[in-house]
Protein backbone atom coordinates (compact mmCIF):
# COMPACT_ATOMS: atom_id res chain seq x y z
CA UNK A 1 0.00 0.00 0.00
CA UNK A 2 1.27 3.49 -0.81
CA UNK A 3 2.04 5.27 2.44
CA UNK A 4 -0.40 8.11 3.05
CA UNK A 5 0.51 11.23 4.98
CA UNK A 6 -2.06 10.43 7.61
CA UNK A 7 -3.68 7.16 8.48
CA UNK A 8 -7.46 7.60 8.53
CA UNK A 9 -8.21 3.98 9.38
CA UNK A 10 -9.75 3.45 12.81
CA UNK A 11 -7.32 0.70 13.67
CA UNK A 12 -4.09 2.20 12.40
CA UNK A 13 -1.17 4.37 13.42
CA UNK A 14 -3.13 7.58 13.86
CA UNK A 15 -5.76 6.02 16.11
CA UNK A 16 -2.94 5.20 18.51
CA UNK A 17 -1.56 8.72 18.04
CA UNK A 18 -4.96 10.23 18.83
CA UNK A 19 -5.01 8.28 22.11
CA UNK A 20 -1.49 9.42 22.97
CA UNK A 21 -2.36 13.03 22.25
CA UNK A 22 -5.44 13.01 24.47
CA UNK A 23 -7.81 13.52 21.56
CA UNK A 24 -10.06 10.55 22.25
CA UNK A 25 -13.42 11.31 23.89
CA UNK A 26 -11.85 14.58 24.99
CA UNK A 27 -13.52 17.64 26.42
CA UNK A 28 -14.63 20.00 23.65
CA UNK A 29 -15.01 23.71 23.79
CA UNK A 30 -18.57 24.99 24.14
CA UNK A 31 -19.73 28.58 24.22
CA UNK A 32 -21.31 29.42 27.56
CA UNK A 33 -25.06 29.87 27.34
CA UNK A 34 -27.36 30.66 30.21
CA UNK A 35 -28.99 27.39 31.30
CA UNK A 36 -32.53 28.77 30.97
CA UNK A 37 -31.86 29.98 27.42
CA UNK A 38 -30.31 26.66 26.49
CA UNK A 39 -33.29 24.79 27.92
CA UNK A 40 -35.59 26.89 25.79
CA UNK A 41 -33.51 26.09 22.73
CA UNK A 42 -33.37 22.39 23.50
CA UNK A 43 -37.13 22.10 24.02
CA UNK A 44 -38.67 19.42 21.82
CA UNK A 45 -41.77 19.72 19.73
CA UNK A 46 -43.51 17.45 17.24
CA UNK A 47 -45.17 20.09 15.14
CA UNK A 48 -42.30 21.52 13.02
CA UNK A 49 -41.08 18.06 12.01
CA UNK A 50 -44.62 16.73 11.41
CA UNK A 51 -45.30 19.71 9.14
CA UNK A 52 -41.99 19.32 7.31
CA UNK A 53 -42.33 15.55 7.00
CA UNK A 54 -45.84 15.80 5.61
CA UNK A 55 -44.70 18.36 3.03
CA UNK A 56 -41.69 16.17 2.20
CA UNK A 57 -43.79 13.01 1.78
CA UNK A 58 -46.46 14.86 -0.21
CA UNK A 59 -43.79 16.21 -2.57
CA UNK A 60 -42.30 12.73 -2.91
CA UNK A 61 -45.68 11.21 -3.79
CA UNK A 62 -46.59 14.03 -6.19
CA UNK A 63 -43.24 14.02 -8.01
CA UNK A 64 -43.18 10.22 -8.07
CA UNK A 65 -46.71 10.14 -9.51
CA UNK A 66 -45.74 12.68 -12.16
CA UNK A 67 -42.65 10.66 -13.04
CA UNK A 68 -44.74 7.50 -13.45
CA UNK A 69 -47.40 9.35 -15.45
CA UNK A 70 -44.88 10.75 -17.90
CA UNK A 71 -42.71 7.61 -17.95
CA UNK A 72 -41.51 7.00 -21.48
CA UNK A 73 -41.40 10.67 -22.41
CA UNK A 74 -38.83 13.34 -21.63
CA UNK A 75 -41.37 15.04 -19.44
CA UNK A 76 -40.67 12.52 -16.71
CA UNK A 77 -37.14 13.93 -16.25
CA UNK A 78 -38.00 17.01 -14.13
CA UNK A 79 -40.28 14.86 -11.99
CA UNK A 80 -37.53 12.32 -11.42
CA UNK A 81 -35.15 15.16 -10.64
CA UNK A 82 -37.40 16.45 -7.85
CA UNK A 83 -38.24 12.95 -6.66
CA UNK A 84 -34.57 11.95 -6.72
CA UNK A 85 -33.38 14.94 -4.70
CA UNK A 86 -36.13 14.48 -2.11
CA UNK A 87 -35.42 10.76 -1.92
CA UNK A 88 -31.65 10.53 -2.33
CA UNK A 89 -30.47 13.84 -0.85
CA UNK A 90 -32.90 15.33 1.64
CA UNK A 91 -33.18 11.90 3.28
CA UNK A 92 -29.65 12.61 4.56
CA UNK A 93 -30.77 15.38 6.89
CA UNK A 94 -33.88 13.41 7.93
CA UNK A 95 -31.66 10.45 8.74
CA UNK A 96 -29.42 12.76 10.70
CA UNK A 97 -32.00 14.64 12.77
CA UNK A 98 -34.11 11.60 13.51
CA UNK A 99 -30.93 9.71 14.45
CA UNK A 100 -30.17 12.28 17.10
CA UNK A 101 -33.72 11.86 18.35
CA UNK A 102 -34.29 15.60 18.19
CA UNK A 103 -36.49 16.05 15.11
CA UNK A 104 -39.70 15.05 16.89
CA UNK A 105 -40.59 15.06 20.54
CA UNK A 106 -42.26 11.67 20.21
CA UNK A 107 -39.72 8.92 20.11
CA UNK A 108 -41.44 6.48 17.75
CA UNK A 109 -41.68 9.21 15.14
CA UNK A 110 -37.92 9.71 15.26
CA UNK A 111 -37.37 5.97 15.01
CA UNK A 112 -39.76 5.58 12.06
CA UNK A 113 -38.26 8.49 10.13
CA UNK A 114 -34.76 7.29 10.93
CA UNK A 115 -35.40 3.88 9.38
CA UNK A 116 -37.20 5.25 6.33
CA UNK A 117 -34.52 7.89 5.67
CA UNK A 118 -31.68 5.39 6.27
CA UNK A 119 -33.03 3.18 3.53
CA UNK A 120 -33.50 6.13 1.19
CA UNK A 121 -29.97 7.44 1.70
CA UNK A 122 -28.82 3.80 1.51
CA UNK A 123 -27.13 3.61 4.88
CA UNK A 124 -27.41 0.78 7.33
CA UNK A 125 -29.20 2.34 10.29
CA UNK A 126 -27.39 0.61 13.14
CA UNK A 127 -23.90 0.92 11.68
CA UNK A 128 -24.47 4.59 10.92
CA UNK A 129 -26.03 5.30 14.29
CA UNK A 130 -22.81 4.18 15.91
CA UNK A 131 -20.50 5.75 13.38
CA UNK A 132 -22.29 9.04 13.84
CA UNK A 133 -22.00 8.71 17.59
CA UNK A 134 -18.24 8.40 17.13
CA UNK A 135 -18.27 11.36 14.73
CA UNK A 136 -19.72 13.43 17.55
CA UNK A 137 -17.30 12.13 20.16
CA UNK A 138 -14.20 12.64 18.03
CA UNK A 139 -15.17 15.07 15.28
CA UNK A 140 -12.50 15.10 12.54
CA UNK A 141 -9.98 13.41 14.80
CA UNK A 142 -7.81 11.37 12.46
CA UNK A 143 -7.87 7.66 13.25
CA UNK A 144 -11.08 8.02 15.25
CA UNK A 145 -13.78 9.68 13.17
CA UNK A 146 -15.29 7.27 10.62
CA UNK A 147 -17.09 10.11 8.84
CA UNK A 148 -14.23 12.23 7.51
CA UNK A 149 -15.51 13.04 4.03
CA UNK A 150 -12.38 14.87 2.89
CA UNK A 151 -9.21 13.19 4.18
CA UNK A 152 -5.84 14.73 3.29
CA UNK A 153 -4.88 14.37 0.56
CA UNK A 154 -8.48 14.26 -0.63
CA UNK A 155 -9.61 11.32 -2.71
CA UNK A 156 -11.05 13.33 -5.60
CA UNK A 157 -12.02 10.28 -7.61
CA UNK A 158 -14.21 8.97 -4.79
CA UNK A 159 -15.69 12.42 -4.29
CA UNK A 160 -16.59 12.68 -7.96
CA UNK A 161 -18.08 9.18 -7.96
CA UNK A 162 -20.14 10.16 -4.93
CA UNK A 163 -21.86 12.97 -6.82
CA UNK A 164 -24.12 10.07 -7.77
CA UNK A 165 -23.45 8.14 -4.58
CA UNK A 166 -21.55 5.50 -6.56
CA UNK A 167 -18.58 4.85 -4.28
CA UNK A 168 -20.66 5.09 -1.10
CA UNK A 169 -23.39 2.80 -2.45
CA UNK A 170 -20.86 0.24 -3.64
CA UNK A 171 -19.37 0.28 -0.16
CA UNK A 172 -22.81 -0.15 1.39
CA UNK A 173 -23.62 -3.02 -0.92
CA UNK A 174 -20.46 -4.86 0.09
CA UNK A 175 -21.17 -4.14 3.75
CA UNK A 176 -24.71 -5.46 3.38
CA UNK A 177 -23.38 -8.72 1.99
CA UNK A 178 -20.81 -8.96 4.78
CA UNK A 179 -23.39 -8.20 7.46
CA UNK A 180 -26.00 -10.50 5.94
CA UNK A 181 -23.35 -13.22 6.25
CA UNK A 182 -23.01 -12.34 9.95
CA UNK A 183 -19.66 -10.51 9.92
CA UNK A 184 -18.45 -7.02 10.87
CA UNK A 185 -15.26 -5.44 9.55
CA UNK A 186 -12.40 -4.79 12.01
CA UNK A 187 -13.13 -1.05 11.83
CA UNK A 188 -16.84 -1.49 12.47
CA UNK A 189 -16.05 -3.63 15.46
CA UNK A 190 -14.33 -0.61 17.04
CA UNK A 191 -17.54 1.40 17.24
CA UNK A 192 -20.47 -1.05 17.10
CA UNK A 193 -21.07 -2.67 20.50
CA UNK A 194 -21.42 -6.44 20.69
CA UNK A 195 -25.09 -6.32 21.70
CA UNK A 196 -26.00 -4.36 18.57
CA UNK A 197 -24.48 -6.80 16.11
CA UNK A 198 -27.51 -9.06 15.70
CA UNK A 199 -29.56 -6.04 14.70
CA UNK A 200 -26.94 -5.07 12.10
CA UNK A 201 -27.13 -8.52 10.55
CA UNK A 202 -30.94 -8.63 10.57
CA UNK A 203 -31.34 -5.22 8.93
CA UNK A 204 -28.75 -6.09 6.26
CA UNK A 205 -30.85 -9.13 5.34
CA UNK A 206 -34.03 -7.02 5.22
CA UNK A 207 -32.33 -4.46 2.95
CA UNK A 208 -31.16 -7.22 0.59
CA UNK A 209 -34.67 -8.71 0.47
CA UNK A 210 -36.14 -5.30 -0.45
CA UNK A 211 -33.52 -4.77 -3.16
CA UNK A 212 -34.14 -8.27 -4.51
CA UNK A 213 -37.90 -7.59 -4.56
CA UNK A 214 -37.33 -4.40 -6.57
CA UNK A 215 -35.07 -6.29 -9.01
CA UNK A 216 -37.75 -8.96 -9.34
CA UNK A 217 -40.42 -6.32 -9.99
CA UNK A 218 -38.21 -4.90 -12.76
CA UNK A 219 -37.75 -8.36 -14.28
CA UNK A 220 -41.48 -9.18 -14.11
CA UNK A 221 -42.62 -5.85 -15.58
CA UNK A 222 -39.74 -5.73 -18.06
CA UNK A 223 -39.12 -2.15 -17.00
CA UNK A 224 -36.60 -0.31 -14.87
CA UNK A 225 -39.39 1.89 -13.48
CA UNK A 226 -39.73 0.10 -10.10
CA UNK A 227 -35.99 0.68 -9.47
CA UNK A 228 -36.30 4.29 -10.59
CA UNK A 229 -38.76 4.72 -7.72
CA UNK A 230 -37.09 2.55 -5.07
CA UNK A 231 -33.33 2.08 -4.91
CA UNK A 232 -31.89 4.04 -7.82
CA UNK A 233 -33.02 7.47 -6.53
CA UNK A 234 -30.32 7.07 -3.86
CA UNK A 235 -27.88 7.31 -6.77
CA UNK A 236 -29.37 9.65 -9.35
CA UNK A 237 -30.79 11.93 -6.67
CA UNK A 238 -27.80 11.86 -4.34
CA UNK A 239 -25.90 14.85 -5.70
CA UNK A 240 -27.37 17.38 -3.28
CA UNK A 241 -26.38 15.20 -0.32
CA UNK A 242 -22.68 15.52 -1.16
CA UNK A 243 -23.18 19.15 -2.18
CA UNK A 244 -24.44 19.92 1.31
CA UNK A 245 -22.43 17.33 3.20
CA UNK A 246 -19.03 18.39 1.95
CA UNK A 247 -19.53 21.90 3.31
CA UNK A 248 -19.67 20.64 6.88
CA UNK A 249 -15.98 20.07 7.54
CA UNK A 250 -13.98 19.76 4.28
CA UNK A 251 -10.69 21.64 4.20
CA UNK A 252 -10.85 22.75 7.85
CA UNK A 253 -8.57 21.78 10.72
CA UNK A 254 -8.14 18.21 11.92
CA UNK A 255 -7.45 17.15 15.49
CA UNK A 256 -8.77 20.26 17.22
CA UNK A 257 -11.13 20.18 20.18
CA UNK A 258 -13.20 23.14 19.05
CA UNK A 259 -16.02 22.81 16.53
CA UNK A 260 -15.60 26.45 15.55
CA UNK A 261 -12.35 25.43 13.90
CA UNK A 262 -13.43 22.24 12.15
CA UNK A 263 -17.03 22.95 11.12
CA UNK A 264 -18.79 25.51 8.95
CA UNK A 265 -21.87 27.57 9.55
CA UNK A 266 -23.26 28.79 6.25
CA UNK A 267 -26.25 30.94 5.47
CA UNK A 268 -28.47 29.09 3.01
CA UNK A 269 -31.68 29.95 1.21
CA UNK A 270 -35.02 28.59 2.53
CA UNK A 271 -35.24 25.80 -0.07
CA UNK A 272 -31.79 24.52 0.81
CA UNK A 273 -32.64 24.81 4.49
CA UNK A 274 -35.78 22.75 3.96
CA UNK A 275 -33.87 20.07 2.07
CA UNK A 276 -31.01 20.14 4.56
CA UNK A 277 -33.05 20.70 7.71
CA UNK A 278 -30.84 23.55 8.93
CA UNK A 279 -27.67 21.48 9.08
CA UNK A 280 -25.97 24.50 7.55
CA UNK A 281 -25.74 25.65 11.18
CA UNK A 282 -23.14 23.02 11.65
CA UNK A 283 -20.98 24.57 14.36
CA UNK A 284 -24.12 25.05 16.41
CA UNK A 285 -25.25 21.49 15.82
CA UNK A 286 -21.94 19.99 16.89
CA UNK A 287 -21.54 22.20 19.91
CA UNK A 288 -25.10 21.57 21.16
CA UNK A 289 -26.42 18.39 19.52
CA UNK A 290 -29.50 18.44 21.72
CA UNK A 291 -30.90 21.52 20.03
CA UNK A 292 -33.43 20.42 17.39
CA UNK A 293 -32.99 21.55 13.79
CA UNK A 294 -35.83 24.05 13.98
CA UNK A 295 -34.15 25.93 16.85
CA UNK A 296 -30.70 26.13 15.25
CA UNK A 297 -31.19 29.61 13.75
CA UNK A 298 -31.98 30.91 17.25
CA UNK A 299 -29.00 29.07 18.71
CA UNK A 300 -26.88 30.65 16.00
CA UNK A 301 -27.99 34.11 17.13
CA UNK A 302 -27.18 33.20 20.73
CA UNK A 303 -23.59 32.14 20.07
CA UNK A 304 -22.58 33.95 16.89
CA UNK A 305 -20.46 36.55 18.69
CA UNK A 306 -18.17 33.75 19.88
CA UNK A 307 -17.91 32.07 16.50
CA UNK A 308 -16.03 32.77 13.29
CA UNK A 309 -17.84 34.80 10.67
CA UNK A 310 -20.48 32.55 9.01
CA UNK A 311 -20.18 31.96 5.27
CA UNK A 312 -22.66 34.21 3.50
CA UNK A 313 -23.72 31.53 0.99
CA UNK A 314 -23.06 27.96 -0.11
CA UNK A 315 -21.28 29.42 -3.10
CA UNK A 316 -18.96 31.35 -0.77
CA UNK A 317 -18.18 28.13 1.09
CA UNK A 318 -17.37 26.35 -2.16
CA UNK A 319 -15.12 29.20 -3.27
CA UNK A 320 -13.03 28.18 -0.28
CA UNK A 321 -13.53 24.42 -0.36
CA UNK A 322 -12.70 23.66 -4.01
CA UNK A 323 -9.29 25.42 -4.14
CA UNK A 324 -8.45 24.02 -0.70
CA UNK A 325 -9.14 20.44 -1.73
CA UNK A 326 -7.18 20.89 -4.96
CA UNK A 327 -4.25 22.30 -3.02
CA UNK A 328 -4.43 19.50 -0.46
CA UNK A 329 -3.87 16.98 -3.24
CA UNK A 330 -0.34 18.39 -3.60
CA UNK A 331 0.07 19.68 -0.07
CA UNK A 332 -1.84 17.54 2.41
CA UNK A 333 -0.60 19.60 5.36
CA UNK A 334 -2.58 22.60 4.18
CA UNK A 335 -5.93 23.49 5.75
CA UNK A 336 -8.13 26.53 6.36
CA UNK A 337 -7.52 27.99 9.81
CA UNK A 338 -10.74 29.72 10.87
CA UNK A 339 -10.40 33.06 12.62
CA UNK A 340 -12.16 33.38 15.93
CA UNK A 341 -13.45 36.80 16.90
CA UNK A 342 -11.07 38.84 19.06
CA UNK A 343 -11.19 38.31 22.80
CA UNK A 344 -13.20 35.10 22.73
CA UNK A 345 -12.05 32.06 24.57
CA UNK A 346 -10.16 29.66 22.33
CA UNK A 347 -8.89 26.14 22.68
CA UNK A 348 -5.23 25.90 21.73
CA UNK A 349 -4.50 23.67 18.79
CA UNK A 350 -3.83 20.29 20.19
CA UNK A 351 -0.37 18.81 19.63
CA UNK A 352 -2.09 16.07 17.66
CA UNK A 353 -2.86 18.64 15.01
CA UNK A 354 0.81 18.83 14.08
CA UNK A 355 1.01 17.30 10.65
CA UNK A 356 3.09 14.18 10.72
CA UNK A 357 3.96 12.29 7.59
CA UNK A 358 3.92 8.51 7.61
CA UNK A 359 7.28 6.82 7.80
Amino acid sequence: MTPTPRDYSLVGRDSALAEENGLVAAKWYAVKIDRKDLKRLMRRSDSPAIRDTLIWLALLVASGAGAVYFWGSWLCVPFFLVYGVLYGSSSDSRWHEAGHGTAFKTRWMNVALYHLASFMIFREPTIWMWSHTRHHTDTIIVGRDPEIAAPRPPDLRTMLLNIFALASSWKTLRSLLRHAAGRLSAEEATFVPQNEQARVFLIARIYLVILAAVALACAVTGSILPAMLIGLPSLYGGFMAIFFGLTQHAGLAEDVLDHRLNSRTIYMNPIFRFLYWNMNYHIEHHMFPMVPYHALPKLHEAIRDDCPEPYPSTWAAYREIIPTLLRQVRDPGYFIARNLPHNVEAVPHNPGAVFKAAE
Partner: protein
Amino acid sequence: MTNEWTDACAIDDIDEEDVIAFEHDGHEYALYRTEDDRFFATDGLCTHEQVSLADGLVMGTIIECPKHNGRFDITTGQTKGGPVCEHLKTYETQVRDGRLFIRTG
Protein backbone atom coordinates in the same frame (compact mmCIF):
# COMPACT_ATOMS: atom_id res chain seq x y z
CA MET B 1 -18.42 6.80 50.45
CA THR B 2 -20.98 6.37 53.21
CA ASN B 3 -24.36 4.68 53.13
CA GLU B 4 -26.23 7.55 54.71
CA TRP B 5 -28.48 10.47 53.94
CA THR B 6 -26.55 13.41 52.58
CA ASP B 7 -27.85 16.96 52.47
CA ALA B 8 -27.45 17.73 48.75
CA CYS B 9 -29.09 21.10 48.13
CA ALA B 10 -32.07 23.32 48.74
CA ILE B 11 -34.98 22.11 46.64
CA ASP B 12 -35.22 25.53 45.02
CA ASP B 13 -31.71 25.12 43.68
CA ILE B 14 -33.25 22.88 41.03
CA ASP B 15 -35.70 24.37 38.58
CA GLU B 16 -38.83 22.50 37.62
CA GLU B 17 -38.11 19.82 35.01
CA ASP B 18 -34.38 20.29 35.38
CA VAL B 19 -31.20 18.73 36.69
CA ILE B 20 -28.14 19.91 38.58
CA ALA B 21 -24.85 18.28 39.43
CA PHE B 22 -23.86 17.51 43.01
CA GLU B 23 -20.46 16.33 44.12
CA HIS B 24 -19.91 14.38 47.29
CA ASP B 25 -16.90 12.37 48.36
CA GLY B 26 -15.38 12.70 44.89
CA HIS B 27 -18.47 11.27 43.24
CA GLU B 28 -20.73 13.18 40.87
CA TYR B 29 -24.49 12.81 41.22
CA ALA B 30 -27.29 14.26 39.12
CA LEU B 31 -30.26 15.64 41.04
CA TYR B 32 -33.56 16.03 39.23
CA ARG B 33 -36.80 17.82 39.87
CA THR B 34 -39.79 16.93 37.71
CA GLU B 35 -42.55 19.26 36.61
CA ASP B 36 -44.85 17.82 39.30
CA ASP B 37 -42.23 18.44 42.00
CA ARG B 38 -40.82 14.98 42.49
CA PHE B 39 -37.09 14.61 43.16
CA PHE B 40 -34.73 11.93 41.91
CA ALA B 41 -31.01 11.28 42.04
CA THR B 42 -28.75 9.22 39.82
CA ASP B 43 -25.06 8.93 39.08
CA GLY B 44 -23.97 12.17 37.51
CA LEU B 45 -22.06 10.80 34.54
CA CYS B 46 -23.55 9.16 31.48
CA THR B 47 -22.71 5.46 31.30
CA HIS B 48 -21.73 5.83 27.64
CA GLU B 49 -18.82 8.26 27.73
CA GLN B 50 -18.84 9.72 31.22
CA VAL B 51 -20.32 13.07 30.24
CA SER B 52 -22.03 15.13 32.93
CA LEU B 53 -25.79 14.67 32.74
CA ALA B 54 -26.31 17.99 34.49
CA ASP B 55 -25.88 19.62 31.07
CA GLY B 56 -28.63 17.43 29.65
CA LEU B 57 -32.33 17.91 29.09
CA VAL B 58 -35.07 16.65 31.40
CA MET B 59 -38.30 15.73 29.63
CA GLY B 60 -40.89 14.29 32.01
CA THR B 61 -38.95 11.53 33.74
CA ILE B 62 -36.34 11.18 31.00
CA ILE B 63 -32.87 12.70 31.07
CA GLU B 64 -31.21 13.09 27.71
CA CYS B 65 -27.43 13.16 27.68
CA PRO B 66 -25.93 16.28 26.10
CA LYS B 67 -23.27 14.44 24.11
CA HIS B 68 -25.06 11.84 21.97
CA ASN B 69 -28.65 12.20 23.12
CA GLY B 70 -28.65 8.90 25.02
CA ARG B 71 -31.70 8.64 27.29
CA PHE B 72 -32.33 7.30 30.77
CA ASP B 73 -35.44 7.04 32.92
CA ILE B 74 -34.51 9.04 36.02
CA THR B 75 -36.90 7.09 38.24
CA THR B 76 -35.27 3.73 37.52
CA GLY B 77 -31.97 4.56 35.80
CA GLN B 78 -32.98 2.35 32.87
CA THR B 79 -31.69 3.16 29.40
CA LYS B 80 -34.35 4.47 27.05
CA GLY B 81 -32.57 4.72 23.73
CA GLY B 82 -29.64 6.26 21.96
CA PRO B 83 -26.13 4.95 22.30
CA VAL B 84 -26.40 4.07 25.97
CA CYS B 85 -26.31 0.38 26.83
CA GLU B 86 -25.67 0.42 30.57
CA HIS B 87 -28.29 1.52 33.10
CA LEU B 88 -27.66 4.43 35.43
CA LYS B 89 -27.38 3.93 39.17
CA THR B 90 -30.20 5.63 41.13
CA TYR B 91 -30.26 6.87 44.72
CA GLU B 92 -33.12 7.34 47.15
CA THR B 93 -34.15 10.91 47.83
CA GLN B 94 -35.99 12.66 50.64
CA VAL B 95 -37.18 16.23 51.07
CA ARG B 96 -36.94 17.66 54.56
CA ASP B 97 -37.46 21.30 55.51
CA GLY B 98 -36.98 22.52 51.98
CA ARG B 99 -33.78 20.54 51.45
CA LEU B 100 -33.07 17.55 49.29
CA PHE B 101 -31.27 14.60 50.86
CA ILE B 102 -29.94 11.64 48.92
CA ARG B 103 -28.90 8.27 50.19
CA THR B 104 -25.32 8.02 49.05
CA GLY B 105 -23.25 4.89 49.04
